[in-house]
Protein backbone atom coordinates (compact mmCIF):
# COMPACT_ATOMS: atom_id res chain seq x y z
CA UNK A 1 0.00 0.00 0.00
CA UNK A 2 1.38 3.38 -0.95
CA UNK A 3 1.37 6.03 1.64
CA UNK A 4 -0.22 9.36 0.67
CA UNK A 5 1.99 12.11 2.02
CA UNK A 6 -0.64 14.87 1.80
CA UNK A 7 -3.02 12.82 3.92
CA UNK A 8 -0.38 11.99 6.50
CA UNK A 9 0.83 15.58 6.64
CA UNK A 10 -2.69 16.85 7.30
CA UNK A 11 -2.68 14.79 10.51
CA UNK A 12 0.21 16.88 11.91
CA UNK A 13 -0.92 20.35 13.08
CA UNK A 14 2.59 21.81 12.93
CA UNK A 15 2.59 21.76 9.14
CA UNK A 16 0.16 24.68 9.17
CA UNK A 17 3.03 26.73 10.52
CA UNK A 18 5.06 29.01 8.23
CA UNK A 19 8.78 29.61 8.77
CA UNK A 20 10.01 33.00 7.52
CA UNK A 21 6.85 33.08 5.42
CA UNK A 22 7.70 29.76 3.77
CA UNK A 23 6.13 26.32 3.96
CA UNK A 24 7.66 24.25 6.79
CA UNK A 25 9.96 21.61 5.33
CA UNK A 26 10.91 19.49 8.32
CA UNK A 27 13.95 17.31 7.63
CA UNK A 28 15.16 16.69 11.16
CA UNK A 29 13.05 13.76 12.29
CA UNK A 30 16.17 11.75 13.13
CA UNK A 31 16.63 14.23 15.98
CA UNK A 32 12.96 14.36 16.95
CA UNK A 33 9.75 13.78 15.01
CA UNK A 34 6.67 15.99 14.80
CA UNK A 35 3.52 14.91 16.60
CA UNK A 36 0.25 13.84 14.97
CA UNK A 37 -2.96 15.39 16.25
CA UNK A 38 -4.09 12.07 17.78
CA UNK A 39 -1.08 12.13 20.12
CA UNK A 40 -1.68 15.70 21.22
CA UNK A 41 -5.40 14.95 21.70
CA UNK A 42 -4.70 11.78 23.69
CA UNK A 43 -2.46 13.70 26.08
CA UNK A 44 -4.95 16.53 26.40
CA UNK A 45 -7.65 13.99 27.18
CA UNK A 46 -5.57 12.53 30.00
CA UNK A 47 -5.11 15.94 31.60
CA UNK A 48 -8.67 17.11 31.00
CA UNK A 49 -10.51 13.93 31.94
CA UNK A 50 -8.52 11.14 33.57
CA UNK A 51 -5.42 12.44 35.29
CA UNK A 52 -4.26 11.00 38.59
CA UNK A 53 -1.19 9.14 39.77
CA UNK A 54 -1.01 5.53 38.66
CA UNK A 55 -0.98 2.24 40.59
CA UNK A 56 -1.88 3.44 44.08
CA UNK A 57 -5.27 5.10 44.01
CA UNK A 58 -8.54 3.25 44.42
CA UNK A 59 -10.77 6.01 43.12
CA UNK A 60 -12.15 6.24 39.57
CA UNK A 61 -9.63 8.72 38.17
CA UNK A 62 -6.65 6.75 39.46
CA UNK A 63 -8.07 3.56 38.04
CA UNK A 64 -8.64 5.18 34.64
CA UNK A 65 -5.14 6.63 34.61
CA UNK A 66 -3.62 3.28 35.59
CA UNK A 67 -5.60 1.45 32.94
CA UNK A 68 -4.55 3.92 30.24
CA UNK A 69 -0.91 3.81 31.35
CA UNK A 70 -0.70 0.02 31.64
CA UNK A 71 -2.61 -0.47 28.40
CA UNK A 72 0.25 1.15 26.53
CA UNK A 73 2.64 -1.51 27.80
CA UNK A 74 0.56 -4.04 25.84
CA UNK A 75 0.66 -1.85 22.74
CA UNK A 76 4.43 -1.47 22.95
CA UNK A 77 4.82 -5.22 23.39
CA UNK A 78 2.74 -5.78 20.23
CA UNK A 79 4.64 -3.06 18.33
CA UNK A 80 7.98 -4.81 18.84
CA UNK A 81 6.51 -8.33 19.12
CA UNK A 82 7.77 -8.84 22.67
CA UNK A 83 6.72 -12.10 24.33
CA UNK A 84 5.06 -10.30 27.26
CA UNK A 85 4.30 -6.81 28.43
CA UNK A 86 6.17 -7.35 31.70
CA UNK A 87 9.35 -7.01 29.63
CA UNK A 88 8.45 -3.44 28.62
CA UNK A 89 10.03 -0.79 30.85
CA UNK A 90 9.04 2.86 30.55
CA UNK A 91 12.05 5.15 30.68
CA UNK A 92 12.76 8.75 29.73
CA UNK A 93 14.31 7.96 26.35
CA UNK A 94 16.58 5.44 24.63
CA UNK A 95 19.58 7.00 26.37
CA UNK A 96 18.14 6.24 29.79
CA UNK A 97 17.25 2.69 28.71
CA UNK A 98 20.81 2.05 27.53
CA UNK A 99 22.24 3.54 30.72
CA UNK A 100 19.91 1.32 32.73
CA UNK A 101 21.43 -1.76 31.10
CA UNK A 102 25.00 -0.49 31.41
CA UNK A 103 24.51 0.10 35.14
CA UNK A 104 21.98 -2.45 36.35
CA UNK A 105 23.35 -5.31 34.24
CA UNK A 106 26.89 -4.07 33.64
CA UNK A 107 27.91 -3.42 37.23
CA UNK A 108 27.38 -7.05 38.23
CA UNK A 109 28.41 -8.78 35.04
CA UNK A 110 31.49 -7.03 33.71
CA UNK A 111 34.87 -7.71 35.27
CA UNK A 112 38.44 -6.69 34.63
CA UNK A 113 39.70 -8.40 31.49
CA UNK A 114 36.25 -8.77 29.92
CA UNK A 115 35.65 -7.17 26.57
CA UNK A 116 32.77 -4.86 25.67
CA UNK A 117 32.16 -4.35 21.96
CA UNK A 118 30.48 -1.33 20.36
CA UNK A 119 30.61 -0.10 16.77
CA UNK A 120 32.17 2.96 15.15
CA UNK A 121 28.74 4.16 14.10
CA UNK A 122 27.21 4.33 17.58
CA UNK A 123 25.42 7.41 18.81
CA UNK A 124 27.10 8.65 22.01
CA UNK A 125 24.16 7.24 23.99
CA UNK A 126 25.12 3.67 23.09
CA UNK A 127 28.83 4.35 23.41
CA UNK A 128 29.65 6.50 26.43
CA UNK A 129 27.74 4.32 28.96
CA UNK A 130 29.84 1.34 27.78
CA UNK A 131 33.06 3.30 27.60
CA UNK A 132 32.58 4.44 31.20
CA UNK A 133 31.57 0.95 32.36
CA UNK A 134 34.75 -0.44 30.78
CA UNK A 135 36.77 2.22 32.58
CA UNK A 136 35.14 1.50 35.94
CA UNK A 137 35.74 -2.23 35.61
CA UNK A 138 39.09 -2.32 33.87
CA UNK A 139 37.47 -4.06 30.89
CA UNK A 140 38.47 -3.62 27.23
CA UNK A 141 36.32 -1.52 24.96
CA UNK A 142 36.63 -2.59 21.32
CA UNK A 143 35.04 -1.25 18.16
CA UNK A 144 33.52 -3.00 15.18
CA UNK A 145 34.93 -1.01 12.28
CA UNK A 146 33.14 0.58 9.34
CA UNK A 147 33.93 0.08 5.68
CA UNK A 148 34.53 3.17 3.53
CA UNK A 149 31.01 2.68 2.26
CA UNK A 150 29.64 3.07 5.78
CA UNK A 151 28.73 -0.56 6.46
CA UNK A 152 29.78 -2.55 9.50
CA UNK A 153 32.89 -4.63 8.94
CA UNK A 154 31.66 -8.01 10.15
CA UNK A 155 35.11 -9.51 9.79
CA UNK A 156 36.37 -7.17 12.51
CA UNK A 157 33.46 -8.32 14.68
CA UNK A 158 34.35 -11.97 14.09
CA UNK A 159 37.95 -11.24 15.12
CA UNK A 160 36.85 -9.50 18.30
CA UNK A 161 34.56 -12.40 19.25
CA UNK A 162 37.12 -15.09 18.60
CA UNK A 163 38.78 -15.39 22.02
CA UNK A 164 35.47 -15.60 23.91
CA UNK A 165 36.16 -12.60 26.15
CA UNK A 166 33.26 -10.50 24.86
CA UNK A 167 30.48 -10.23 27.43
CA UNK A 168 28.29 -7.71 25.68
CA UNK A 169 27.88 -6.21 22.22
CA UNK A 170 26.08 -2.87 21.89
CA UNK A 171 24.95 -2.10 18.37
CA UNK A 172 22.66 0.36 16.63
CA UNK A 173 19.93 -0.98 14.36
CA UNK A 174 20.21 2.12 12.18
CA UNK A 175 22.90 4.78 12.14
CA UNK A 176 21.67 8.30 12.89
CA UNK A 177 24.35 9.71 10.59
CA UNK A 178 24.96 7.26 7.75
CA UNK A 179 21.50 5.73 7.84
CA UNK A 180 23.20 2.32 7.75
CA UNK A 181 20.93 -0.62 8.60
CA UNK A 182 23.33 -3.36 9.69
CA UNK A 183 22.49 -7.07 9.33
CA UNK A 184 21.48 -7.14 12.97
CA UNK A 185 20.13 -10.70 13.00
CA UNK A 186 23.45 -12.12 11.82
CA UNK A 187 25.27 -9.88 14.27
CA UNK A 188 23.13 -11.14 17.17
CA UNK A 189 23.75 -14.71 16.08
CA UNK A 190 27.51 -14.19 15.91
CA UNK A 191 27.56 -12.57 19.35
CA UNK A 192 25.39 -15.23 20.96
CA UNK A 193 27.55 -18.00 19.56
CA UNK A 194 30.49 -16.32 21.28
CA UNK A 195 28.52 -16.12 24.54
CA UNK A 196 27.91 -12.35 24.48
CA UNK A 197 24.67 -10.52 25.23
CA UNK A 198 23.41 -8.06 22.63
CA UNK A 199 22.02 -4.61 23.41
CA UNK A 200 20.29 -3.00 20.44
CA UNK A 201 19.87 0.75 20.10
CA UNK A 202 16.67 1.07 18.07
CA UNK A 203 16.27 4.83 18.53
CA UNK A 204 16.55 5.37 14.77
CA UNK A 205 15.12 2.03 13.66
CA UNK A 206 11.88 1.83 15.67
CA UNK A 207 10.24 4.82 13.95
CA UNK A 208 11.18 3.67 10.45
CA UNK A 209 11.33 -0.12 10.09
CA UNK A 210 9.35 -3.01 11.55
CA UNK A 211 11.00 -4.18 14.78
CA UNK A 212 10.48 -7.74 15.95
CA UNK A 213 12.50 -8.57 19.05
CA UNK A 214 11.68 -12.27 18.81
CA UNK A 215 13.00 -12.48 15.27
CA UNK A 216 16.04 -10.36 16.18
CA UNK A 217 16.94 -12.60 19.08
CA UNK A 218 18.62 -9.74 20.95
CA UNK A 219 18.66 -9.46 24.74
CA UNK A 220 17.87 -5.76 25.20
CA UNK A 221 16.44 -3.15 22.88
CA UNK A 222 15.83 0.54 23.56
CA UNK A 223 14.06 3.28 21.65
CA UNK A 224 12.67 6.78 22.14
CA UNK A 225 9.03 7.67 21.68
CA UNK A 226 9.75 11.23 20.63
CA UNK A 227 11.42 10.10 17.41
CA UNK A 228 8.27 8.29 16.27
CA UNK A 229 5.70 10.98 16.96
CA UNK A 230 5.16 10.44 20.68
CA UNK A 231 6.22 12.89 23.41
CA UNK A 232 9.36 12.57 25.53
CA UNK A 233 9.28 9.01 26.77
CA UNK A 234 11.35 5.95 25.97
CA UNK A 235 11.13 2.18 26.11
CA UNK A 236 13.56 -0.47 27.21
CA UNK A 237 12.73 -4.05 26.35
CA UNK A 238 14.71 -6.87 27.93
CA UNK A 239 14.38 -10.60 28.33
CA UNK A 240 12.46 -11.30 31.52
CA UNK A 241 15.01 -13.76 32.88
CA UNK A 242 17.83 -11.25 32.56
CA UNK A 243 15.72 -8.39 33.91
CA UNK A 244 14.82 -10.47 36.95
CA UNK A 245 18.46 -11.22 37.65
CA UNK A 246 19.41 -7.55 37.59
CA UNK A 247 19.67 -5.07 40.42
CA UNK A 248 17.44 -1.96 40.21
CA UNK A 249 18.75 1.15 38.47
CA UNK A 250 16.89 3.87 40.38
CA UNK A 251 15.45 3.50 43.86
CA UNK A 252 12.29 5.02 45.29
CA UNK A 253 8.55 4.63 45.26
CA UNK A 254 6.71 2.07 43.14
CA UNK A 255 9.82 -0.04 42.55
CA UNK A 256 9.65 -1.67 45.99
CA UNK A 257 7.43 -4.33 47.50
CA UNK A 258 8.35 -3.73 51.16
CA UNK A 259 10.57 -1.27 52.92
CA UNK A 260 11.90 -1.61 56.44
CA UNK A 261 14.29 0.74 58.17
CA UNK A 262 17.38 -1.15 57.04
CA UNK A 263 16.30 -3.25 54.10
CA UNK A 264 13.94 -3.28 51.13
CA UNK A 265 12.43 -5.89 48.82
CA UNK A 266 12.06 -5.03 45.13
CA UNK A 267 8.86 -5.08 43.15
CA UNK A 268 8.48 -7.46 40.17
CA UNK A 269 9.59 -6.51 36.66
CA UNK A 270 8.92 -4.16 35.00
CA UNK A 271 8.04 -2.06 38.09
CA UNK A 272 11.41 -2.78 39.68
CA UNK A 273 12.86 -0.47 37.02
CA UNK A 274 10.22 2.28 37.18
CA UNK A 275 10.99 4.24 40.33
CA UNK A 276 8.89 7.29 41.09
CA UNK A 277 5.86 8.74 39.32
CA UNK A 278 6.19 7.97 35.63
CA UNK A 279 5.38 10.36 32.76
CA UNK A 280 1.73 9.24 32.64
CA UNK A 281 0.28 11.42 29.90
CA UNK A 282 3.43 10.96 27.81
CA UNK A 283 3.10 7.19 27.96
CA UNK A 284 -0.54 7.50 26.88
CA UNK A 285 0.68 9.74 24.03
CA UNK A 286 3.12 6.99 23.06
CA UNK A 287 0.22 4.58 22.84
CA UNK A 288 -1.60 6.94 20.47
CA UNK A 289 1.54 7.32 18.34
CA UNK A 290 1.94 3.54 18.07
CA UNK A 291 -1.73 3.22 17.05
CA UNK A 292 -1.14 5.86 14.40
CA UNK A 293 1.96 4.13 13.03
CA UNK A 294 0.32 0.71 13.14
CA UNK A 295 -2.60 2.14 11.17
CA UNK A 296 -0.20 3.42 8.50
CA UNK A 297 1.71 0.14 8.75
CA UNK A 298 5.44 -0.12 9.42
CA UNK A 299 6.07 -1.90 6.12
CA UNK A 300 4.41 1.00 4.29
CA UNK A 301 6.54 3.44 6.32
CA UNK A 302 9.70 1.60 5.33
CA UNK A 303 8.68 1.37 1.68
CA UNK A 304 7.83 5.08 1.51
CA UNK A 305 11.13 6.10 3.07
CA UNK A 306 13.21 3.80 0.92
CA UNK A 307 11.66 5.33 -2.19
CA UNK A 308 11.98 8.88 -0.89
CA UNK A 309 15.61 8.41 0.17
CA UNK A 310 16.48 6.91 -3.22
CA UNK A 311 14.88 9.94 -4.88
CA UNK A 312 16.62 12.37 -2.50
CA UNK A 313 20.04 10.80 -3.00
CA UNK A 314 19.71 10.98 -6.78
CA UNK A 315 18.62 14.63 -6.65
CA UNK A 316 21.28 15.62 -4.13
CA UNK A 317 24.10 14.09 -6.13
CA UNK A 318 23.28 16.57 -8.91
CA UNK A 319 24.20 19.44 -6.59
CA UNK A 320 27.80 20.47 -7.40
CA UNK A 321 30.35 19.61 -4.71
CA UNK A 322 27.87 17.59 -2.67
CA UNK A 323 29.02 14.32 -1.10
CA UNK A 324 26.75 11.81 0.64
CA UNK A 325 28.07 9.44 3.30
CA UNK A 326 26.85 5.92 3.91
CA UNK A 327 25.33 3.10 1.89
CA UNK A 328 22.73 3.11 -0.87
CA UNK A 329 18.95 3.33 -0.29
CA UNK A 330 18.30 -0.41 0.17
CA UNK A 331 20.70 -0.62 3.11
CA UNK A 332 19.85 2.62 4.84
CA UNK A 333 17.12 4.48 6.64
CA UNK A 334 15.88 8.02 6.40
CA UNK A 335 19.01 9.87 7.56
CA UNK A 336 21.13 11.35 4.76
CA UNK A 337 24.30 13.11 5.84
CA UNK A 338 26.28 15.16 3.37
CA UNK A 339 28.87 17.87 2.91
CA UNK A 340 29.22 20.65 0.36
CA UNK A 341 32.78 21.34 -0.72
CA UNK A 342 34.21 24.36 1.06
CA UNK A 343 31.02 25.22 2.95
CA UNK A 344 30.54 24.58 6.64
CA UNK A 345 27.38 22.62 7.55
CA UNK A 346 26.29 25.37 9.95
CA UNK A 347 26.07 27.81 7.10
CA UNK A 348 24.10 25.31 5.04
CA UNK A 349 21.62 24.93 7.90
CA UNK A 350 21.36 28.70 8.49
CA UNK A 351 20.64 29.54 4.86
CA UNK A 352 18.21 26.63 4.46
CA UNK A 353 16.34 27.87 7.53
CA UNK A 354 15.53 31.06 5.68
CA UNK A 355 13.77 28.86 3.12
CA UNK A 356 11.77 27.09 5.82
CA UNK A 357 13.94 23.98 5.48
CA UNK A 358 15.00 22.44 8.82
CA UNK A 359 18.11 20.27 8.72
CA UNK A 360 20.78 19.50 11.32
CA UNK A 361 24.45 20.43 11.18
CA UNK A 362 27.30 19.20 13.32
CA UNK A 363 28.45 15.89 14.69
CA UNK A 364 24.99 14.46 15.47
CA UNK A 365 26.25 12.95 18.75
CA UNK A 366 28.53 10.63 16.81
CA UNK A 367 32.04 12.00 17.18
CA UNK A 368 34.01 8.76 16.64
CA UNK A 369 32.02 8.17 13.44
CA UNK A 370 32.98 11.59 12.08
CA UNK A 371 36.60 10.97 13.09
CA UNK A 372 36.50 7.66 11.19
CA UNK A 373 35.64 9.52 7.99
CA UNK A 374 37.87 12.46 8.88
CA UNK A 375 34.93 14.86 8.81
CA UNK A 376 34.84 17.98 10.99
CA UNK A 377 31.04 18.04 10.70
CA UNK A 378 28.21 17.09 8.35
CA UNK A 379 24.81 18.39 7.36
CA UNK A 380 21.98 15.92 7.78
CA UNK A 381 18.56 15.78 6.18
CA UNK A 382 16.34 13.09 7.62
CA UNK A 383 13.00 11.93 6.30
CA UNK A 384 9.83 10.56 7.82
CA UNK A 385 6.29 9.65 6.84
CA UNK A 386 5.20 13.29 6.39
CA UNK A 387 8.00 14.08 3.95
CA UNK A 388 7.52 13.94 0.21
CA UNK A 389 9.26 14.78 -3.04
CA UNK A 390 8.24 18.43 -2.60
CA UNK A 391 10.46 18.51 0.49
CA UNK A 392 13.38 17.08 -1.48
CA UNK A 393 12.81 19.77 -4.11
CA UNK A 394 12.83 22.52 -1.46
CA UNK A 395 16.07 21.10 -0.04
CA UNK A 396 17.77 21.03 -3.43
CA UNK A 397 16.62 24.55 -4.34
CA UNK A 398 17.89 25.73 -0.95
CA UNK A 399 21.27 24.09 -1.48
CA UNK A 400 21.67 25.90 -4.80
CA UNK A 401 21.00 29.12 -2.93
CA UNK A 402 23.67 28.17 -0.35
CA UNK A 403 26.18 27.70 -3.14
CA UNK A 404 25.17 30.99 -4.75
CA UNK A 405 25.73 32.90 -1.51
CA UNK A 406 28.82 31.16 -0.20
CA UNK A 407 30.52 29.61 -3.19
CA UNK A 408 33.64 31.37 -4.36
CA UNK A 409 33.01 30.74 -8.02
Amino acid sequence: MNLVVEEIRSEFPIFQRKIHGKRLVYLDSAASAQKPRVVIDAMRKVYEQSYANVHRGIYTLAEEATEAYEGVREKVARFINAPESAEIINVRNATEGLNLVAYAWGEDNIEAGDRIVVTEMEHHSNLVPWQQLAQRKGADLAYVGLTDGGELDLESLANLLEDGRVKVLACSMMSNVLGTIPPIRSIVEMAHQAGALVVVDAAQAAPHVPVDVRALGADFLAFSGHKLGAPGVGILWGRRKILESMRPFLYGGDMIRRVEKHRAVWNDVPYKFEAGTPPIAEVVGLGAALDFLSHVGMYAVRQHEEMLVAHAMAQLLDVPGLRIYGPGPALRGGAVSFTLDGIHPHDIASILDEEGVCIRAGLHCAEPLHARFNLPATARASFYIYNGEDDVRALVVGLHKVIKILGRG
Partner: protein
Amino acid sequence: MSDLYREYMLDHYHNPRNYGAVDGPDVDIDMDNPTCGDKIHLTARLDDDGHIAEVQFEGQGCVVSMASASMLSEEVVGKTPEDIAAMDLEDVQDMMGGVRLSMGRVKCATLALNALKRGLKEAGKLADDTEA
Protein backbone atom coordinates in the same frame (compact mmCIF):
# COMPACT_ATOMS: atom_id res chain seq x y z
CA MET B 1 18.62 37.85 3.32
CA SER B 2 19.66 37.48 6.91
CA ASP B 3 22.32 39.66 8.48
CA LEU B 4 24.70 36.75 8.79
CA TYR B 5 25.55 36.53 5.13
CA ARG B 6 25.91 40.20 4.28
CA GLU B 7 28.79 41.27 2.09
CA TYR B 8 30.81 42.49 5.07
CA MET B 9 30.67 39.04 6.68
CA LEU B 10 31.34 37.18 3.46
CA ASP B 11 34.31 39.41 2.68
CA HIS B 12 35.96 38.48 5.98
CA TYR B 13 35.05 34.82 5.39
CA HIS B 14 36.42 34.60 1.86
CA ASN B 15 39.38 36.94 2.48
CA PRO B 16 40.31 36.41 6.10
CA ARG B 17 42.64 39.07 7.57
CA ASN B 18 45.68 37.92 9.54
CA TYR B 19 45.33 34.31 8.47
CA GLY B 20 48.33 32.27 9.57
CA ALA B 21 50.53 32.18 12.65
CA VAL B 22 52.57 34.84 14.43
CA ASP B 23 56.35 34.37 14.66
CA GLY B 24 57.50 34.01 18.26
CA PRO B 25 54.02 34.26 19.78
CA ASP B 26 53.27 35.12 23.41
CA VAL B 27 49.87 33.47 23.03
CA ASP B 28 49.48 30.17 21.22
CA ILE B 29 46.26 28.25 21.62
CA ASP B 30 44.00 25.72 19.92
CA MET B 31 40.30 25.74 20.60
CA ASP B 32 37.28 24.00 19.13
CA ASN B 33 33.52 23.75 19.42
CA PRO B 34 33.17 20.01 19.65
CA THR B 35 29.46 20.00 18.91
CA CYS B 36 29.75 21.79 15.59
CA GLY B 37 33.31 21.08 14.50
CA ASP B 38 34.69 24.63 14.41
CA LYS B 39 38.41 24.70 15.10
CA ILE B 40 40.82 27.58 15.56
CA HIS B 41 44.55 27.95 16.15
CA LEU B 42 45.17 31.44 17.42
CA THR B 43 48.53 33.11 18.04
CA ALA B 44 49.26 36.61 19.32
CA ARG B 45 52.22 38.81 20.18
CA LEU B 46 52.25 41.58 22.81
CA ASP B 47 54.35 44.74 22.55
CA ASP B 48 56.72 46.00 25.24
CA ASP B 49 53.87 47.83 27.01
CA GLY B 50 51.84 44.64 27.18
CA HIS B 51 49.35 45.70 24.50
CA ILE B 52 48.30 43.33 21.74
CA ALA B 53 50.63 43.94 18.80
CA GLU B 54 49.47 41.25 16.42
CA VAL B 55 46.94 38.41 16.24
CA GLN B 56 46.81 35.69 13.63
CA PHE B 57 44.51 32.72 13.31
CA GLU B 58 43.98 29.66 11.20
CA GLY B 59 41.25 27.09 11.31
CA GLN B 60 38.10 25.78 9.84
CA GLY B 61 34.53 26.59 10.59
CA CYS B 62 31.39 28.34 9.55
CA VAL B 63 31.09 31.89 8.25
CA VAL B 64 30.28 33.17 11.73
CA SER B 65 33.29 31.62 13.46
CA MET B 66 35.81 32.43 10.73
CA ALA B 67 34.57 35.96 9.94
CA SER B 68 34.44 36.86 13.63
CA ALA B 69 38.01 35.58 14.07
CA SER B 70 39.15 37.70 11.14
CA MET B 71 37.41 40.79 12.52
CA LEU B 72 38.72 40.17 16.01
CA SER B 73 42.29 39.93 14.74
CA GLU B 74 41.97 43.56 13.59
CA GLU B 75 39.78 44.82 16.40
CA VAL B 76 42.02 43.89 19.33
CA VAL B 77 45.33 45.37 18.18
CA GLY B 78 46.41 47.97 20.72
CA LYS B 79 44.14 46.64 23.47
CA THR B 80 45.37 45.40 26.84
CA PRO B 81 44.64 41.86 28.08
CA GLU B 82 42.22 43.42 30.58
CA ASP B 83 40.37 45.18 27.74
CA ILE B 84 40.00 41.82 26.06
CA ALA B 85 38.87 40.09 29.24
CA ALA B 86 36.10 42.69 29.44
CA MET B 87 34.83 41.99 25.92
CA ASP B 88 31.65 39.95 25.62
CA LEU B 89 29.07 38.72 23.13
CA GLU B 90 27.66 42.22 22.77
CA ASP B 91 31.04 43.51 21.62
CA VAL B 92 31.38 40.65 19.16
CA GLN B 93 27.94 41.37 17.72
CA ASP B 94 28.81 45.07 17.40
CA MET B 95 32.09 44.14 15.73
CA MET B 96 30.11 42.06 13.25
CA GLY B 97 28.05 45.07 12.22
CA GLY B 98 25.35 44.77 14.87
CA VAL B 99 24.00 41.35 13.92
CA ARG B 100 21.77 39.63 16.44
CA LEU B 101 22.95 36.06 16.78
CA SER B 102 20.61 33.19 17.45
CA MET B 103 21.49 31.04 20.45
CA GLY B 104 22.88 28.31 18.21
CA ARG B 105 25.48 30.64 16.70
CA VAL B 106 26.76 32.35 19.85
CA LYS B 107 29.46 29.73 20.39
CA CYS B 108 30.65 30.13 16.80
CA ALA B 109 30.85 33.92 17.12
CA THR B 110 32.75 33.90 20.39
CA LEU B 111 35.18 31.08 19.55
CA ALA B 112 38.06 33.40 18.63
CA LEU B 113 37.44 35.76 21.54
CA ASN B 114 37.30 32.88 24.01
CA ALA B 115 40.47 31.42 22.51
CA LEU B 116 42.28 34.74 22.90
CA LYS B 117 41.06 35.13 26.50
CA ARG B 118 42.12 31.64 27.47
CA GLY B 119 45.40 31.99 25.60
CA LEU B 120 46.20 35.19 27.50
CA LYS B 121 45.47 33.42 30.78
CA GLU B 122 47.61 30.45 29.89
CA ALA B 123 50.41 32.81 28.93
CA GLY B 124 50.15 34.46 32.36
CA LYS B 125 49.01 37.76 30.88
CA LEU B 126 45.68 37.65 32.71
CA ALA B 127 44.85 36.60 36.26
CA ASP B 128 43.36 33.09 36.40
CA ASP B 129 40.22 34.34 38.06
CA THR B 130 39.45 36.85 35.31
CA GLU B 131 36.02 36.15 33.95
CA ALA B 132 36.28 34.68 30.47
